[in-house]
């Protein structure tokens, strides 16, 4: 593969010029037409019956065009479990749930009208802790759970708050514990976090008199928005067009369909008008997906030489008020529940539990940060228990080529050992530095693994149009939210077509014109969309050869192509330029040969299977991406402040399509991990989200971000395009446990939850004394 020309090189981002000049169009920057502005009325109780909604005053307010309540619009929607309505119908299930929406000629009028809507609730007892919610006598949040439509790979328990119970039964757990010399059992907790992309959720819709619905959305997947709206509103797909713009950060919160459907009935009343909604920061914090909190219990059996023989994992997830997407996070965490380790005997129970907290949903890592927190902390305790080097315990149990995951899937293209050793070496593992001025130093490492969580048949497709002058348009349905899709996909097309990247145009999707893509989530696009594009390029290339053979009267197998011309291997003077071939090629007699070249490619996984409902055994992973994080910290015992002295992050990209962008992505994920490890926690008081802005919900900024040493490992993914696999989410996963392991090393105390705020660290130190 050393003869690659474009793949593996750093080319500037396709969107760079637009993004540094302010020309990049995000949804709110587009002029779409005559506009009506929408604002939501939100519930003031976390769980309650809606007794009365009075919209009279709001409707009469100057500038107001329409007011819509759940009664007028009871349509249901959901990705895996259809458990939501756009507006609460008879009851509200979380604080801030939309109960009505107003559209007016100005944002101000809409906001004023919202205040005029009167809502009366009969408050119901709430569930704010999933450990309470799972109990048989807990108040029921979804009485209709048994009647909801659900993808049959999830296992809800009607009559309870359990939206999914996922099980792993691998090997023989009893035997595994019998073989163990020691057993450790601990509880762990990971709180909710928020994605806080700097661009909030936004959407606009337009209904045209011929019954066509046009949607502009910040969604990560235009195709899923189209699919879910088609189902919910019973509109055929060709009558729904979803248009994407650049997206100002996604991280999972813009996956699935969220706010797009809210406005459709209003649009239908005002054909031709654009009805737009823009979430403010507070609405974005409180009304969109949060990362589900996790309460877990982990029991590990291990031999005296550090071999793990058994693992029992119980996870109770705070699914929040609706779990249409969350049920799959719970499943993914379940089938991956041994983390990066090969453990023969496993028993996992992963429960998705409804509560009256904000809606749980996908966040970078899709359950892996939360689940592997427990794994990586417990491995550390195992090592301490045995007085062994934690790195050695990781190496001893870490997955290798041929290892099996918790679901029994065999992993192939793995060099976890290298990932671990790179970060360990970088931070000077094994050498203990002492801090200055009474400060305490420690080092920690953690490993990580993640596969995309997606349906076993989640598809991608691509179209490549070769222009008359030999330049090309690549059309895909993947979105650009910063991850660099446009650039990486162009590089793959360029490599396969032998056309330079700057002669390739690629745009963000529009479902009326770009081909199907399931979702831009799960770090899957480089692999799935990349494979489709490679296939489309090969298809176009086949046409180029075929036309050239016809034109030159030379058999295809005797032809070569160098990106500019096709020529005969026997006589290079017999040649045709790509322009001649692509421009509706004709013979010298004037007879046409073939029209424009259009390459098509699609991809659907063939290596994934359903999982056994009782044992969870099967192949849920399209590919597995491994990595590791290494950290050195210094702690001020007086204040509990943790300073990061060294931060090293490695990820096995298989093949970095664009090394610079891969590194930036690795840094970005590592920083998000750092931010959650030290600062981020959404706080609730009986379902009321308390920190709903950037002052109360702190995220890492310049001051908090140290230099990061990054390592892109390249163990080729056999079926990935040019050996590549996705790395977008993974770098985040190991950071929190690595930091906690380092702090624990420095202070000799255990941490079973994060963020490691100064207060928490200080208290832990104080309790130790």
């Amino acid at each position, binding site marked *: 593969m050393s003869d690659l020309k474009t793949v593996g090189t750093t080319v*500037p*981002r396709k*969107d*760079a*010029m*637009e*993004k*540094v*000049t*302010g*020309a*990049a*169009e*995000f949804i*709110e*920057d587009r002029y779409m037409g005559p506009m009506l502005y929408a604002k939501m009325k939100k519930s003031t109780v976390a769980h309650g019956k809606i007794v009365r909604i009075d919209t009279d005053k709001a409707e009469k307010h100057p500038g107001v065009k329409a007011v819509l309540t759940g009664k007028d619009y009871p349509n249901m929607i959901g990705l895996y479990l259809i458990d939501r309505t756009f507006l609460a119908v008879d009851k509200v299930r979380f604080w801030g749930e939309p109960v009505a929406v107003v559209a007016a000629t100005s944002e101000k009028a809409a906001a004023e009208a919202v205040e005029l809507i009167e809502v009366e609730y009969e408050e119901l007892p709430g569930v704010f802790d999933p450990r309470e919610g799972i109990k048989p006598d807990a108040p029921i949040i979804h009485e209709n759970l048994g009647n909801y439509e659900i993808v049959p790979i999830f296992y809800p328990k009607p009559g309870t708050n359990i939206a999914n119970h996922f099980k792993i039964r691998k090997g023989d757990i009893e035997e595994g514990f019998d073989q163990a010399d020691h057993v450790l059992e601990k509880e762990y907790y990971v709180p909710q976090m928020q*994605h*806080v*992309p*700097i*661009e*909030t959720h936004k959407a606009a819709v337009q209904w045209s008199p011929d019954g066509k619905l046009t949607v502009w959305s910040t969604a990560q997947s235009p195709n899923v928005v189209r699919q879910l709206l088609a189902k919910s509103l019973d509109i055929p797909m060709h009558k729904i067009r979803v248009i994407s713009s*650049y*997206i*100002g*950060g*996604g*991280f999972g919160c813009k996956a699935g369909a969220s706010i797009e459907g809210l406005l459709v009935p209003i649009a239908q009343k005002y054909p031709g008008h654009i009805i737009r909604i823009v979430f*403010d*920061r507070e609405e974005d914090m409180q009304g969109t997906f949060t990362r589900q909190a996790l309460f877990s219990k982990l029991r590990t059996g291990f031999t005296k030489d550090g071999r793990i023989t058994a693992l029992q994992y119980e996870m109770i997830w705070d699914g929040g008020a609706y779990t249409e997407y969350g049920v799959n996070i719970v499943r993914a965490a379940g089938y991956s529940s041994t983390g990066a380790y090969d453990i023969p005997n496993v028993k996992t129970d992963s429960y998705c539990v409804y509560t009256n907290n904000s809606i749980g949903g996908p966040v970078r890592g899709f359950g892996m940060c939360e689940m592997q927190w427990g794994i990586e902390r417990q491995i550390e305790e195992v090592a301490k228990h045995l007085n062994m080097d934690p790195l050695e315990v990781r190496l001893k149990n870490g997955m290798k080529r041929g290892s099996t995951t918790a679901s029994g899937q065999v992993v192939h293209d793995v060099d976890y050992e290298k990932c671990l050793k790179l970060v360990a070496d970088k931070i000077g593992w094994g050498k203990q530095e002492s801090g200055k001025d009474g400060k305490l130093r420690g080092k920690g490492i953690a490993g990580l693994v993640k596969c995309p969580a997606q349906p076993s048949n989640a598809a991608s497709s691509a179209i490549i149009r070769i222009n008359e002058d030999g330049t090309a348009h690549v059309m895909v349905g993947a979105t650009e*939210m*910063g*991850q*660099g899709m446009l650039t990486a996909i162009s590089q793959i097309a360029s490599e396969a077509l032998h056309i330079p990247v700057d002669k390739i145009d690629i745009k963000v999707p529009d479902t009326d014109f770009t081909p199907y893509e399931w979702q831009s989530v799960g770090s899957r696009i480089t692999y799935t969309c990349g494979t489709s594009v490679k296939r489309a390029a090969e298809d176009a290339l086949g046409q180029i050869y075929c036309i050239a053979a016809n034109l030159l009267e030379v058999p295809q197998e005797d032809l070569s192509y160098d990106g500019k011309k096709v020529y005969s291997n026997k006589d290079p003077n017999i040649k045709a330029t790509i322009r001649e071939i692509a421009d509706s090629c004709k013979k010298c007699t004037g007879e046409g040969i073939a029209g424009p070249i259009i390459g098509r490619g699609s991809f659907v996984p063939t290596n994934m299977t359903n999982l056994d409902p009782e044992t969870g055994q099967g192949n849920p992973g399209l590919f597995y991406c491994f990595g590791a994080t290494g950290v050195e910290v210094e702690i001020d015992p007086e204040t509990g402040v943790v300073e990061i002295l060294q931060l090293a992050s490695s990820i096995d990209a298989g093949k970095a399509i664009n090394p*610079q*962008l891969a590194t*930036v*992505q690795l*840094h*970005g*994920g*590592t*920083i*998000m991990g750092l*931010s959650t490890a030290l600062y981020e926690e959404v706080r609730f008081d009986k379902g009321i989200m308390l920190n709903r*802005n*950037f*002052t109360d919900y702190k*995220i*890492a*900024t*310049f*001051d908090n*971000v140290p*230099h*990061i040493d990054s390592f892109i490992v390249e163990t080729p993914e056999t079926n990935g395009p040019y050996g590549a696999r996705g790395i977008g989410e993974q770098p985040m996963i190991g950071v929190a446990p690595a930091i906690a392991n380092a702090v624990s090393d420095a202070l000799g105390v255990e941490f079973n939850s994060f963020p490691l705020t100064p207060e928490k660290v200080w208290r832990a130190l104080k309790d130790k004394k």
Partner: protein
Amino acid sequence: MSDKIKIKFTVNGDSEEREAVVGETLLKFIRDELNLTGTKSGCEIGECGACTVLLDGKPVNSCLVLAVELDGKELLTIEGLSKNGELDRLQQAFIDHAAFQCGYCTPGMIMAARSLLERNPNPNDSEINKALSGNLCRCGAYQEIRDAVKDSASK
């Protein structure tokens, strides 16, 4: 109807005379009246820096300034940095270092960094950290932004 006041100012070097709604923010005025949509909104309460522009050469969160305050002042937005299609060297350094992912914070980030470089042509890491600490980047391009600022300073 809302009260409007006539204001005179320069924007990206051009003199303008417009009416501004009393009480409306400069951010709204820039985006909706001047149609300069490069300046972004991320919080509208002064916490994220996405809306940073230069007013008489000083960085401000345009969501915290009233449009009428623009009267008699010089406004520089991201659109005013490149001249005749030539990028400012800070913009070029952002490209060279891939100092962004989604790019939503980028206009504000570049404006804040630009003002730092005018005050301090050779900032070190901690000076950059301090000057840009009000600009959030959730994509986490902080390291690349620091490199881009230093690189453009050294040229």
